[in-house]
């Protein structure tokens, strides 16, 4: 099969807020504007930089560095904690601006949205003009310090690539006219979804540049390089055909935590696990699900990891159910080593409504009623007003964070608005 490059008029726009966490802080606190600033998971020297400001990036500071390294590059860099409530509000305002243009607005992450203009009345005005207007509106309605990159193309993959061409505050279009030219100036790992492992695999088959990738035949991609349907998807994606407009249903709920003080003490670990299970359980129940599976993953300080998942016959619903099974799995780890990252998730979800009523009230039904009552109290008076005793004095542990790329959380956020 030889499929040509998509020659339709570009109708997909990818919008990406520049250094979102840092510019939101600079918007809120003007004395921070124009100064190198980083938002870090922890402000201590070992804390990880989550987002550097545009000014900090000029000093070579990058996401993923430690605060210590950021200070080596620029000793007076301002270090601040993330403010999840501020960022969520920025996202909601950002979403509201875009929702005026098309009903098809899809969150990709807390700072990225995709709009499909196909069939909308504004499409005829031209997307470049609309993009300029959106930039202006974001400055007016979200904040004058907030800027964004906009990419326009025929599919989501190329629109994201276009949004990254000129940072910050860029506006680029990729169409059949300049597709080859854009690919010529990029490396394989510049393509979203191609990491160094895929690059190595592509190299083995003589594909060294995005242009080689574009020229590769469907047979080579499908049967040799990717050895799966992914080869066909890449063949379409690279030519500007849409393959990523898929809405995935929710498959699991999970929580993870990078330990401030790394430990192998079971008493500490189970307390953290209890809080993770309480947060996960609140989300599970809030979305009217119960789970038939639980998974635990541990990353140790020596960078080795261990994980285990279990499918169960009896559904997990209360925090206590989740916690008991998570501890059961924790106790099966072959060696107790110092833990640096702790993650728990539940899967095999089933909706709780409608529910078969018991003829005789079981112990499970009683526990469910207690949990519902506790959840209602926490909904009314605030998170963690009533908690299990194991969570006492844990207010400063596992605090509210923005999950990267968690699109489902953003949909929950729109529903709560």
């Amino acid at each position, binding site marked *: 099969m030889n499929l040509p490059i998509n020659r339709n008029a570009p109708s997909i726009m990818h919008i990406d807020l520049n250094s979102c966490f840092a510019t939101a802080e600079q918007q809120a606190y*003007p*004395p921070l504007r124009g100064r190198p600033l980083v938002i870090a998971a922890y402000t201590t020297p070992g804390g990880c930089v989550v987002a550097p400001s545009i000014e900090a990036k000029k000093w070579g500071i990058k996401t993923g560095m430690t605060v210590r390294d950021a200070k080596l590059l620029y000793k007076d860099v301002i270090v601040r904690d993330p403010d999840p409530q501020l960022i969520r509000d920025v996202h909601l305002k950002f979403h509201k601006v875009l929702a005026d243009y098309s009903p098809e607005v899809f969150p990709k992450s807390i700072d990225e949205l995709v709009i499909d203009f196909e069939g909308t009345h504004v499409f005829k005005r031209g997307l470049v003009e609309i993009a300029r207007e959106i930039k202006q509106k974001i400055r007016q309605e979200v904040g004058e310090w907030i800027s964004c990159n906009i990419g326009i193309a025929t599919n989501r993959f190329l629109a994201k690539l276009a949004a990254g061409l000129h940072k910050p505050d860029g506006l680029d279009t990729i169409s059949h006219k300049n597709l080859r030219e854009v690919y010529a100036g990029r490396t394989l790992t510049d393509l979203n979804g191609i990491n160094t492992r895929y690059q190595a695999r592509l190299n083995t088959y003589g594909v060294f540049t995005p242009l080689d990738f574009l020229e590769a035949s469907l047979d080579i991609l499908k049967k040799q390089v990717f050895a799966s349907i992914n080869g066909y998807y890449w063949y379409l994606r690279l030519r500007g055909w849409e393959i990523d407009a898929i809405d995935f249903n929710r498959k699991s709920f999970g929580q993870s935590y990078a330990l401030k003080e790394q430990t192998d003490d079971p008493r500490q670990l189970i307390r953290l696990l209890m809080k993770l299970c309480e947060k996960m359980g609140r989300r599970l129940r809030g979305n009217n699900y119960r789970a038939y599976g639980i998974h635990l993953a541990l990353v140790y300080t020596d960078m080795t990891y261990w994980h285990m998942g279990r499918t169960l016959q009896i559904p997990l619903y209360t925090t206590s159910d989740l916690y008991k099974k998570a501890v059961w799995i924790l106790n099966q780890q072959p060696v107790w080593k110092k833990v640096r990252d702790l993650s728990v998730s539940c899967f095999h979800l089933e909706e709780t409504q409608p529910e078969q009523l018991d003829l005789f009230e079981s112990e499970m039904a009683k526990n469910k009623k207690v949990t519902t009552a506790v959840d209602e109290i*926490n909904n009314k*008076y605030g998170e963690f*007003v009533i908690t299990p005793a194991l969570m006492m004095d844990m207010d400063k542990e596992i605090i509210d964070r923005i999950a990267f790329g968690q699109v489902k959380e953003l949909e929950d956020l729109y529903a709560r608005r």
Partner: protein
Amino acid sequence: MRSFYDRNTNRELPQEVIWQGRTYKINQVAYHWPVRRGRKLLHIFSVVTDNNTSFKLVYDTETLYWILEEVIDEFAN
């Protein structure tokens, strides 16, 4: 804290902050975001004063109290 309630727009906006014996006139609300803690609604205002100092002010709609949560000036680090 001095604030101004506009009955036409039904909005209450901070006007002046009196902090450590000094009055700071608020020039601009740089950002405002509402936050729910349970059923309680809080309005958070980040404001800029005439000497380029930022205050993070929290307005509790239940008690009608203002809380000064943070002060950021040009010496922030």
